[in-house]
């Protein structure tokens, strides 16, 4: 057994043991995740040197190259970290036994998906992942929160829909070319290739959560616990979806051979960035807000990959990694807050920074990272994407200003919304009931703190560590050296600036915060009304003349693909039911009815009067005579 099988099978077995044996249950899960991580590292290290392929059962074909090696590593890492988090977080969860098992399975199968070396293997693992996701989402129906069932149905509908299209696309390739491995660079110039490319991208979009297939993420965020959100939509599905998009765009196919498809990706990316972030801006719930950001960030990756410019692609890939890091960190920290407060409404929270310093720090770093504040990693990858977009002009693609604009605007609005979020949760007035809140345990804060640290690390040491070590080697391009950005230098400068600011704070005029009573209309504002949360920050935006309509639509679900999906299919259903079924029923009932009526009429022939009978009989003989003699 090589590392490939062990990587996948060991978590499955250990998870199953944990599922069966109540004794040492958590240790089994933990061991499974650890072993998974261990083998992931091994495979990662192997993949640095050579490309390995392995066939199992003559059907599963695994292969690892530098790209899949590094994605594998991170999937495994996230599995481990979030498992540690959730073992504590979901300690009192009713069905945790199954939950952890499926969680571990998702991690293992996610690794398998990345390792898939040909089309069939990919289909199988991708599908198994869907089934596991639906199994784990099945738990939310038991959640006390409302809407669990709907969220389950919606997310599985969208994911299943896109997966079926993905299977169709892959099947089309399978039929046309046989069972392909992924390093072929097929030109996108014939119908089959283009069609299957589009179908597969739909699968990727739904998984990663790009508009218009994003709506399952905000929906599931209403009911899912924080670690699930951190794991599935925020890290695993991002990694897998974007990984696959990259795979098919530049390995299986060559996106650069089709100008239109590139723009298709970039348009989707830009719209995703802007629309999702605008929706995020006005959310009143932490998880939902974060989930809209999850969607929004996908836009950068899709945009980056869509550029076809090496630096842009690298940016997209790097952004995928960064996003997974800081977004899971955000979800986890939000979860830590929820762990004590049992609250996710923005207006009910506030002022928690002193109580939960580590959580706050982690959250702040990640929030800054997602907003693209230098020198954090988010900035760096976004910047690479911008560069890629700008380089488009060299190719004569004059739509690039629009893409650039939306990307930058998205970044700004992200910052804006995170200002609101940070303020609402950690700063501002603290409600009374939260005064006794303490920092969470080690096993809860450690994963998020580690992720925050990674954000920081990948930001400061961006070039030596992730870019040179992970991103560039993974891509099959020669990437030109770029710009003058030196993250370390910038960091030092920023730190210097902060120190200067601190000095000024110490010695300057700003000494002490002065508390004053608040008056409204001449009256003293009551103590309990004094709490001011951030959820109203951007109400003006919502009421802006142009955006107002858009928000209305958005709130009504007009941008929700699920509604269209169900509407279309319901329409067809109605048609089938009311037309075809109705007609058939009608025909069969009419036949029965007709034979009843016909029988009723015919039986009147038997009148009971002998003369009538004789008359008919004599007519009969006359007719017979006429027929036979004439």
């Amino acid at each position: 057994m090589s590392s490939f099988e062990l990587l996948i099978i060991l978590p499955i077995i250990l998870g199953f043991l944990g599922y069966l044996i109540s004794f040492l249950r958590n240790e089994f899960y933990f061991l499974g995740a650890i072993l998974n991580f261990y083998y992931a590292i091994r495979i990662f290290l192997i993949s640095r040197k050579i490309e390995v392929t392995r066939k199992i059962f003559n059907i599963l074909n695994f292969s690892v190259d530098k790209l899949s090696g590094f994605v594998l590593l991170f999937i495994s890492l996230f599995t481990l970290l979030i498992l540690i988090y959730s073992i504590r977080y979901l300690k009192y969860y009713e069905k945790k036994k199954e939950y952890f098992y499926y969680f571990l399975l998702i991690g293992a199968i996610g690794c398998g998906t990345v390792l898939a070396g040909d089309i069939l293997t990919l289909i199988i693992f991708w599908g198994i992942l869907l089934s596991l996701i639906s199994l784990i989402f099945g738990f939310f129906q038991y959640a006390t929160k409302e809407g669990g069932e709907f969220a389950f149905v919606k997310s599985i509908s969208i994911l299943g829909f896109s997966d079926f299209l993905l299977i169709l696309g892959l099947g089309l390739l399978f039929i046309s070319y046989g069972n392909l491995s992924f390093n072929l660079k097929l030109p996108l110039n014939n119908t089959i290739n283009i069609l299957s490319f589009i179908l597969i991208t739909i699968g990727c979009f739904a998984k990663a959560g790009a508009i218009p297939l994003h709506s399952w993420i905000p929906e599931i965020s209403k009911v899912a616990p924080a670690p699930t959100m951190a794991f599935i939509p925020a890290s695993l599905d991002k990694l897998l979806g974007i990984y696959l998009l990259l795979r098919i765009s530049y390995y299986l196919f060559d996106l650069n051979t089709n100008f239109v498809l590139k723009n298709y990706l970039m348009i989707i990316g830009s719209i995703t960035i802007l629309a999702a972030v605008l929706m995020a801006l006005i959310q009143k719930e932490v998880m939902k807000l974060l989930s809209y950001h999850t969607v929004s960030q996908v836009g950068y990756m899709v945009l980056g990959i869509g550029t076809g410019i090496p630096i842009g692609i690298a940016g997209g890939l790097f952004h995928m990694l960064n996003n997974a890091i800081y977004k899971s960190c955000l979800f986890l920290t939000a979860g830590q807050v929820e762990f004590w407060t049992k609250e996710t409404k923005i207006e009910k929270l506030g002022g928690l920074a002193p109580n939960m310093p580590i959580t706050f720090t982690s959250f702040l770093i990640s929030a800054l990272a997602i907003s693209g504040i230098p020198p954090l990693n988010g900035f760096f990858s976004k910047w690479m994407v911008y560069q890629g977009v700008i380089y488009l002009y060299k190719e004569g693609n004059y739509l690039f200003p629009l893409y650039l604009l939306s990307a930058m605007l998205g970044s700004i609005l992200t910052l804006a919304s995170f200002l609101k979020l940070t303020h609402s949760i950690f700063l501002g007035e603290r409600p009374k009931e939260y005064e006794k809140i303490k920092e969470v345990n080690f096993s809860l804060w450690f994963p998020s703190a580690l992720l925050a640290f990674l954000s920081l690390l990948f930001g400061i040491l961006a070039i030596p560590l992730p870019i040179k070590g992970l991103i560039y080697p993974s891509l099959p391009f020669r990437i030109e050296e770029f710009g003058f950005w030196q993250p370390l230098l910038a960091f030092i400068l920023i730190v210097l600036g902060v120190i200067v600011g601190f000095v000024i704070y110490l010695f300057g005029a700003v000494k002490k915060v002065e508390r004053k009573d608040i008056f409204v209309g001449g009256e003293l504002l009551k103590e309990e009304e004094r709490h001011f949360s951030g959820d109203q920050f951007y109400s003006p935006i919502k009421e802006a003349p142009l955006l107002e309509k858009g928000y209305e639509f958005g709130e009504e679900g007009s941008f929700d693909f699920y509604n269209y999906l169900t509407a279309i299919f319901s329409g067809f259903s109605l048609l089938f039911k009311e037309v075809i079924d109705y007609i058939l029923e009608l025909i069969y009932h009419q036949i029965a009815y007709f034979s009843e009526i016909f029988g009723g009429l015919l039986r009147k022939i038997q009148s009971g009067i002998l003369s009538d009978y004789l008359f008919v009989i004599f007519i009969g003989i006359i007719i017979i005579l006429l027929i036979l003699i004439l």
Partner: protein
Amino acid sequence: MNYLPLFTALPLLGAFLIPLLSKIWERLSDIISNVITTLLLILSVYSLFLLPIFGKVYVYEIGKWAIKPIPLGIVFTFDNLSLLMVLVINLLSFACSLYSITYLDNYTARWKFWTLFLLMVAGLNGVAITGDLFNLFVFIEISAISSYALVAFGVEKEDLEASFKYQIIGEIAGLTILLAIALIYAKTSTLNMADIANTFAKESKGPLFWFIISLLTFGFLIKSALFPFHFWLPDAHSQAPAPISAMLSGIFIKVVGVYALSRLIFNIFGLNRLNASHYFNLLLILGIFSIVIAGFIALKQENYKRLLAYSTISQVGYIFVGLGLANFWSITGALSLIFAHALGKGLLFLTAGPVEKEAGSLDIHLLSNFKKRMSFYGIVYTLGALSLAGIPPFLGFFPKIFLILGAIKGKRFEVAIILGIFSLLTLAYLLKITNKVFTKKEGEEVKGVSSIVISFLFLVFLIFILGLFYLNYLEPNLISKATEAVISGVEYARLVLIK
């Protein structure tokens, strides 16, 4: 095979003995008639094995009046077609007489019933084996008169009415047949059927010929109750006592109507599709009309036996479609349908007896509210109904195959479809009774009565076992030979006269 006259002589003997002996002990009539029908059954089964030894036809010259060189004497001819009919007659009359032992407890005049019953059997057997045209008429009348009397046996209002109407229409048929026989005699100066065939073969077929044919057809179509000559049948068959209904529906109309007609038109007049296609088309069209119209009427019937009576008309339509297509397969189908329908419809009519006795009525609506359960009769009825509707593995399935095959071979595709689709109608109206009368789960179970149960078991056994052995045994040994006898036409005359 010189026991051939026994087929008529035995029942006639019984019919004369019974009035005398039943004065001594009334139950003696039961014994005599059952012994006679059993003997007849044994004889007919024995003939099944004996006939092949004598070749295709056995001719019995009554009183040793040789038919050669001049066919003056009266003969019985016994070929494979007669064999088939005799077998069917005696199978069903055996079952019915067995059944009647208990059934007759409802009636007072036991010996009268048995006398009439045996007379009818004698007449029917006579029709099947006679080789003389006038004898044919006589036997038809013997069986017909006894059937008129038997229909009126209950002497209720409806019974008498049905009997009267039946008599008038039936006798018109009889007279028409007599007129036709007179005309035939005028034309040929002979009454021996084989001789008539030879004479007609030499002559051209003028209007008189066709006039005779029309008269015969008219008469026999009335006897076999094909649409539009069926009016007497629903009344008569629904009002007769149950075993008589079974006999009338099961064999009477087939022997007196279908058998006699097909014997005359195929064997005596030598008609076939080549020289008389319009004649056969007439039969075909009337057959289809019968199937459809009687089927739809049966669907709306509210009386147990009346429904079955209409079903008989519809089934006769199938037989006539088979005759009308007039090829080997379709006639095989028609003849096997005679067999299957005799057993099946006989069974169904017989079930009416105990049901009427238990519930006091045959109105389906009343029966559906009847409180007791009759599972045994229900199962028997349903099996018979399934057989009649042509559902395998029962006997009734095979006629359907051959009829449809005949239609396909005759390039009458629409007929094949009609035959197939309207067997659905058969199923529908027959199961109407199963659904409304017998499908109950609660209530006290009705106990079966001994001889009735035995006759049911006998018929069900036959339906099932003959269905199983149809293609392997029954078809090659009996029915296809009978079909050959029909299809070979005036070959019959040669075979008879060569003796």
